């Protein structure tokens, strides 16, 4: 792919020039030399669909586990064993080096305050709102945004919400940038130049378009300018394939884009990974989403590079866990207690955290789900406190209203 100096740079110059005259746009905050809020980075990954914590982190030491899950428990395998009779799913085996380096932890038997209805929509809303109950839809904002409101020196590029899904998690009054790296466009140099001319009369549109051009050239996909006709055809094919359902590498591109921003001025990124609603044949259906999760974490690490990765904490959380027992179609249904994944160079990792009550039927929540013994928000709150120094009172009052943070689990090194 060749970039024609003429078109893209000129387009960007136009965008910047146009920008200076519209002071109201949040994208236009002039480059500021104020201190970034911190050198630490936080990545929040929402695992949408209800991730089965027991399949990710398998309590092989518990005899009830194999009984409850005839097709899913699998044989105890020493190469996958991480701690005290806990083993990980083979699909996340590529994360073992991180475990041994202290860059990976699991928290078991945690949940949001959501109970009983087991609806994905409400469960995810509550996970993102970070509150104890769901208030009015129209007035909801997300805990990540409220966290930003509690930080100093936050600018438009401090936090990125990545992907096309509107995320409640980052919604609110603090500025958050957004981009979706699956948005690609390929135009000739001539087309790009003409586009710039066409938009000239509308500053707002020109500015958003210029941002789109800038970000799309950073996200690892096709960027705007192609000069050679045969390459144009090739890129069109590539474009079509990334639009289809088989957009296989989409999660990697999201992770690459997140890493690129976090290496620069951004300190916070959030996005979601789906595919966790494994009602059927979970032995197969769980593999792809777990692989994507592992690849996402490894891509973040590889693309952040040593120094930034050492200051990064990744939190992966889900709306609820799943039933302890397999259902009639060799899958699991919506449950309650689940697992959280922590990763990053900033971690004091290599630990299984959280208190599990075991899988005997009497110890289960409503005799079916993993009994949650702790609030998943507590771990998020301590990670935020350790990363960005927010006070416990702000966290308990504003970010996660009603949460009791209790003792520090010492998540970060």
């Amino acid at each position: 792919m060749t970039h024609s100096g003429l078109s893209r740079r000129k387009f960007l110059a136009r965008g910047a020039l146009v920008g200076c005259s519209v002071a109201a746009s949040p994208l236009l905050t002039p480059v500021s030399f104020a201190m970034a809020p911190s050198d630490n980075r936080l990545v929040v990954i929402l695992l949408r669909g209800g991730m089965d914590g027991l399949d990710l982190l398998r309590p092989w030491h518990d005899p009830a586990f194999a009984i409850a899950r005839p097709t899913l428990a699998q044989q105890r395998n020493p190469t996958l064993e991480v701690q005290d009779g806990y083993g990980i799913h083979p699909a996340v085996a590529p994360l073992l080096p991180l475990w041994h380096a202290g860059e990976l932890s699991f928290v078991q038997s945690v949940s949001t305050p959501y109970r009983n209805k087991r609806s994905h929509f409400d469960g995810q809303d509550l996970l993102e709102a970070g509150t104890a109950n769901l208030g009015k839809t129209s007035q909801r904002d997300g805990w990540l945004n409220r966290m930003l409101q509690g930080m100093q020196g936050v600018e438009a590029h401090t936090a990125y919400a990545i992907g096309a899904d509107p995320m409640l998690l980052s919604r609110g009054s603090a500025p958050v940038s957004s981009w979706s790296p699956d948005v690609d466009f390929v135009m000739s140099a001539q087309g790009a130049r003409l586009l710039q001319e066409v938009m000239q009369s509308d500053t707002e549109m020109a500015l958003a378009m210029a941002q789109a051009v800038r970000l799309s050239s950073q996200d690892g996909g096709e960027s705007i300018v192609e000069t050679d006709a045969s390459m144009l055809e090739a890129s069109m094919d590539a474009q079509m394939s990334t639009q289809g359902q088989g957009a296989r590498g989409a999660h990697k591109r999201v992770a690459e884009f997140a890493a690129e921003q976090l290496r620069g001025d951004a300190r916070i990124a959030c996005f979601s990974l789906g595919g966790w609603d494994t009602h059927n044949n979970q032995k197969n259906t769980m593999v792809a989403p777990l692989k994507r999760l592992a690849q996402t974490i490894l891509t973040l690490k590889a693309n952040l590079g040593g120094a930034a990765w050492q200051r990064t904490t990744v939190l992966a959380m889900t709306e609820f866990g799943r039933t302890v027992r397999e259902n009639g179609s060799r899958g699991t249904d919506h449950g309650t207690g689940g697992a959280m994944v922590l990763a990053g160079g900033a971690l004091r990792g290599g630990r299984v955290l959280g208190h599990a009550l075991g899988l005997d039927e009497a110890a289960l929540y409503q005799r079916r789900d993993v009994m949650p013994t702790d609030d998943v928000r507590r771990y998020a709150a301590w990670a935020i406190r350790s990363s960005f120094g927010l006070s416990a009172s702000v966290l308990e009052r504003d970010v996660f209203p009603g949460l009791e943070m209790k003792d520090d689990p010492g998540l970060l090194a």
Partner: protein
Amino acid sequence: MLHFDPEIAESRFGYGYSPSVQAPVSVDQMLARLRTKDEIASRFVIKDSSQISASFKEFSDLSRRLRIARKLNPKEDVGLVVKEMKQFRSNWRKQSVQRTGSMLMRRVWTQDALRERLIAFWTDHFSAPGKTYNYRFTFPSYVETAIRPNVTKSFSDLLLAAVLHPQMLKFLDQPASVGPNSSFAKKNPAQKRGLNENLAREILELHTLGVNGHYSQNDVRELAKLLTGLWVTSSGEARFIETRSEPGQAKVLGKLYGGARDGEESIADVLNDLARHPDTARHIANKLATHFISDAPPKDLVKALEMEFLASDGDLMRVSEALLRHPAAWHESRANFKQPDLFVSSALRALAVSDQQIENVSSATINRNLLLPLRKMGQPWGEPAGPDGFEEHDSYWLTPQGMGARLQWSLAAPTAFAGELPDPREFVVNVLGSRASDAVMFAARAAENRREGVALVLMSPEFQRC
């Protein structure tokens, strides 16, 4: 003096210029078309709720059989039911694609585009996306049944049809709401059943008075009491179950309902009163003006709509007329930015995509070139995030990823739907008429190929602002 302009009529109150459909020539003609028969609906048919009820029942039965088979029976039976279910779902998927096509074709080929825009507006006002698989399937039929026939009637007709439809009852959890003193609650004390305020709250907050209206938490609670008894059967039909209904009277906005009247009549009474309330008139006037004219609509326009709403007892035909007869409706400044749904539909109208072409494209093409791009633009088809519908303000849509996704779509989708693309030099004139700026005229002429020429026209401010 501001007056009728066919280009504004199509872009602001329709789905844009079409090269094949004559634009209206006057406000009178627009109103006459709106007043007369809904022709395009019979040309591109979408089944209403009664026409899909058998198929909905079939789905409920299959789901029940699957549940039972999974619980009790060994594997072989499950396999059979699963297979049946798969076939059923594949059939529903096909129907969904067809209905999406019909909805687009109505927008592309209608002469009465204002009707389609009003339907889109009221569908959003009464947002009730399905939370489960079956109710996602029934959503277009809800629009066909509750919204479409009522957008030219009175607001109370529309309100009752929408909020009492099973789609809305299910969406806002009404079947879970039980009168705490109903005989059902008394017979089943262990279940601790009581009120669910969801529907009552949204009726007051979103559908009628508006969040700034004069109502209190107590009114929500009392309305919730009146609404108890509304229930939905497993085959998707609305019922009033007396035994679940809270006995006695309830006071909403200072007026007593219930008691001697039976439960269903009381519900109609209170909804009719709410539909005529001055706060409702103000709320609706403001929403209409914001949607069609500007995020900051002229105050006199809002006032005019509000007065007409009150004077006509919420006659939506007359409110629409008041909108079109107001000078602000024809103002030259294009203060609105098209939402993705409007952007995409008006592009297909500009390309005069035919029903043959839509029928010939695969469901994968619909997915790849319509549903997925709309998601990327931030407006997933038929799936607003909540009962408050999609965001109205332009700033929400005019984002980098929104613009990027529109460009991506403009470059790829026209070929996928229209096959051969028009000559950009003609296209720009057909689509933008006298509005075309020198810049976009030049771009259409100077583009390297048809594909980019068409995309440049679609991306122009003249096309995206209305």
